């Protein structure tokens, strides 16, 4: 009991003095004040890194409703796992795993959703100054092709596009590095076939 108290006090003082620093311990806070602080930290981090989650949602869903649904589930999973985030890696790095796991494993696509309000076309407009008709056409086709891949292939492409190396890709998905490379090559072939049937 006494040990708990000291521990809590330690955490409180530390978190006040180091408000902006990394998370200190994996200690799960029970004190309401600490909880609020943790929540604030988490929401701020996620707000700053939300692009990663949005990109995953764009890949795995076809309309705005499903996008928001998946985003919400990923947020819940991130928040649930956040007390275990030790700050020994970047928040964004840690996010990739939880977000991808949610998208390919935990999340269940709802069949009830209406598939009509497809937003695919608005997702990849290029800025006016770099406008290039053939390039834009190519990009459009590429996005379309990637969206036709299966869940696992999408995950590989996503990590590849995010500039992750094969070690990171293999660690995130739980396959060997060699397999990741082989898979990526197969995906490239698949994409080529989709583009030039």
């Amino acid at each position: 009991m006494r040990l708990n108290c000291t521990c809590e006090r330690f955490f409180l003082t530390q978190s006040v003095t180091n408000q902006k620093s990394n998370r200190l311990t994996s200690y799960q806070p029970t004190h309401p004040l600490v909880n609020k602080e943790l929540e604030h930290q988490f929401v701020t981090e996620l707000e700053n890194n939300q692009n990663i989650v949005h990109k995953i949602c764009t890949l795995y869903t076809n309309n705005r409703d499903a996008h928001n649904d998946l985003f919400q589930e990923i947020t819940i999973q991130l928040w649930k796992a956040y007390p275990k985030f030790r700050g020994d890696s970047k928040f964004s790095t840690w996010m990739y795993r939880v977000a991808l796991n949610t998208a390919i494993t935990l999340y269940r696509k709802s069949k009830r959703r209406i598939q009509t309000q497809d937003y695919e076309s608005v997702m990849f407009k290029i800025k006016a100054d770099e406008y290039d008709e053939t390039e834009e056409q190519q990009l459009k086709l590429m996005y379309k092709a990637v969206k036709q891949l299966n869940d696992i292939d999408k995950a590989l492409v996503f990590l590849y596009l995010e500039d992750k190396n094969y070690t990171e890709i293999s660690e995130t998905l739980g396959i060997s590095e060699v397999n990741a490379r082989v898979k990526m090559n197969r995906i490239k072939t698949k994409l080529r076939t989709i583009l030039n049937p």
Partner: protein
Amino acid sequence: MDELELLKKDWQQKKEHLPKLSYDEIHKMTWKKSSSIVKWILIISILELVVPNLLVVLFVGADDWSTKDLGLMANYYLGFNTFYYAVVLYFIYQFYRRYKEISVLDDSKNLMRKIIKTRKTVKHYVIFCLAMILVFFAIFIIGFYLDDSILLSMEGMAEKAEEVPIAKLKSTAVWIFALGGIAFAAFMGGVYFLLYGLLFRKLKVNYKELKRLEV
């Protein structure tokens, strides 16, 4: 592949077309309930635990069996119950252990493997329950053969026995119990496998895909 490099370039600068949620919107989401597959396993498993036991109570009725004259069957029944609840407790413990092992921080393949393992525990539990339903009916059938008083102690049977010869009554009862037991078990099994089949379709496909290159 040039197109993929082109896509990569575009992907990394693509920011302004993505939705942007405010602090408050994200904050609200942290309070929402998860609807993940793991949550569903938990809910369904609890139902599976409660429903068969509830059915036994409904089926057998709220009557206190100990006050009834079950003759030979009393021992069977007591043994059956002790065995049943011991195994149920074992499954609850197993399920809890597996459930606790599931972590979203695992790599994808491990996460899927653990979810499938948890599901397998539930599957074994259901198979056990279905078997128990059959055993439950079988005990009655054996009871009918060994001891006429069991059949006669059932409601309305004593009057029937005066009109119909006991042997005929006995074989009819055995058939009804045998078919009823099988139909009941098949129905419960059907519901279960359909439910899990639908729930796990996506996960199974993805797990297979991840495992495909191994060997």
